[in-house]
């Protein structure tokens, strides 16, 4: 079997996305008291998007070169996934460790790949406290506090 290019998969994803919204749109009234109702536009747009997705799939099957920028492999892929993993971990740790600890950890992990550990810790602390002051004191944002209460 010929290997599908990424466009086919993206087309399938968009087709499923639009199909979901098409089916959900059926729950809303198509007509309102005057003129079209809240189900009108979603139904049409998701329907049109579904048809377009089918064209996209066909276009991608014919297109042998695939998209202009290939998906990353090896080191490049690891690098992208590393940053994503850091972001997700940061998001999970924020409510547990609190803003300051989670942020220092997050920044340190990203800095330490390129700089010495003591420079990385210093930079992470500096940035975190600056943001804590700027957003916390000047702009009155209440940050997640975490289990330690700070």
């Amino acid at each position, binding site marked *: 079997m010929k290997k599908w290019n*990424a466009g086919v998969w993206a087309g399938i994803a968009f087709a499923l996305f639009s199909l979901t919204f098409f089916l959900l749109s059926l729950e*809303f009234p198509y007509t309102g008291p005057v003129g079209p109702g809240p189900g009108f536009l979603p139904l049409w747009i*998701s329907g049109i998007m579904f048809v377009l997705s089918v064209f996209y799939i066909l276009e991608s099957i014919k297109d042998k070169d695939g998209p202009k920028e290939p998906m990353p492999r090896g080191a*490049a892929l690891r690098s992208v996934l590393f940053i994503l993993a850091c972001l997700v971990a940061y998001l999970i740790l924020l409510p547990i460790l609190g803003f300051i600890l989670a942020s220092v950890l997050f920044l340190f992990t990203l800095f330490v790949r390129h700089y010495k550990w003591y420079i990385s810790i210093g930079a992470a602390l500096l940035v975190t406290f600056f943001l804590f002051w700027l957003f916390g004191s000047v702009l009155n944002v209440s940050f997640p506090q975490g289990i330690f209460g700070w």
Partner: protein
Amino acid sequence: METIALLLDGFKHALTIWNLLYCLIGVSIGMLVGVLPGLGPVAGTALLIPITFGMEPISAIIMLSGIFYGSMYGGTITSVLLNIPGESASVITTLDGYQMAKQGRAGTALGVAAIGSFIGGVAAILGLTFLGPPLAEFALKFGPPEYFSLLVLGLLLLVGLMGKSVVRGLIAACFGLILSLIGMDPVSGAIRFTFGQMELMEGLDFVVVAMGLFGISEILLNAESHMKMDKPAKIQGLLPARDEWKPTLKAIGRGTGIGFLIGLIPGANSVIASILSYSLEKKVAKDPSRFGKGAIEGVAGPETANNAHSGAAMIPLFTLGIPSSPTVAIILGAFIMHGLTPGPTLFQNNPDFVWGVIASMFIGNLILLIFNLPLAKVWAKVAMVPYEILFPLILILSVVGVYSIRSSLWDVGLMIAFGVIGYLMKKLDLPIAATVLTFVLGSQIESTLLQSLASSQNGLLVFFHSPISGTLISLAIIILVVSVIAGLKKKRSALVSDLEA
């Protein structure tokens, strides 16, 4: 005469200490955004929106629009010195600008770009000053059908002019429109597509979507390749040689005209303006073979055009409430957030605001001229900040910025998810600009469509009843048909694959 009095009044508002400071902050961040790789004008503008919450609307918009036109100046510096365009409108500048730098003429390239940018920018703001009020007056006659037709035309122009495939452009546009439907429907009050999530009741926040699609995705994309920067060229002598002044000024004049005209068209963006200017310069030149080898007109024209565009792009925003690019769409979102209704009534209802912002744009351009002529060397140093320091800072600022909007970690998660979607869309040549524009305009598209149809006796024909709406929608149909046919014949040469500014 009345206009001049109003403008002078605007200067009174723009020249208060605080507003001057916000203007300075705005254009400085604009320069930063233009100079630094990995942070584009959309993400830069969106990042600052949470900070404007407590500010007066006029100060907020002065600052945010400063980022927009400031980034046009900043993008030039890295294009010329490092062959790295800071933002998409400066891509074309690398062709001749970097060559000039290699020949030891980096200073001259930056000098003419700054002068051209200033002339183009100021001319466009003058255009806004004098054309804005009559256009707004005219636009007051627009009803829902005219608006809907104009929105469709703008979006189809965007989709038709960009990217490899019309199908992908349209998919990206539909995607944004569907995302905008999530949450409470303003017309009927129905709650749609929330999947039972309380957080989705108010809909997706446009800052979250824009930061993810444009900001986070850019960082992920840059993570693939190790960014290596060469030592930048030395900057010496900012002014062109005596015999170069005439062709340079002519190129600046033509660039101003092109940028201004393109800026007036909703959906046509600064990248198109700079590319058109470049090809025009090549056409009118006596010796086109100089282009690509350091032709001064190849820098002066496009750089002027993208600044004239950014000034002129404010005209459809102020008079019609229609953005011509994602960055302007973000500014439009900020208008709404600050309780202003963008569109023709803005000139009548909020004259202090409108004229204050216009006056601040004159001031901002003057500050930028100073930044770019005597201070060009300082900004060149800023461009050398290593990316390894920069990207963690951009990431944490994005997270904190998005969190601060609603104090919601859910929004941060959504931003990360949209970052992945944006990354994949960039990989697959799906134009993100189309998604963001339809997302921001979604509720306007729906309400104008529904109002038009509700008032209509014969369905969709309502869009052909008035001459204005009929012309606009016919143009839209023609653009769609032409770009589909060009796509089928494979003769489609994409102007640009995607854009920001």
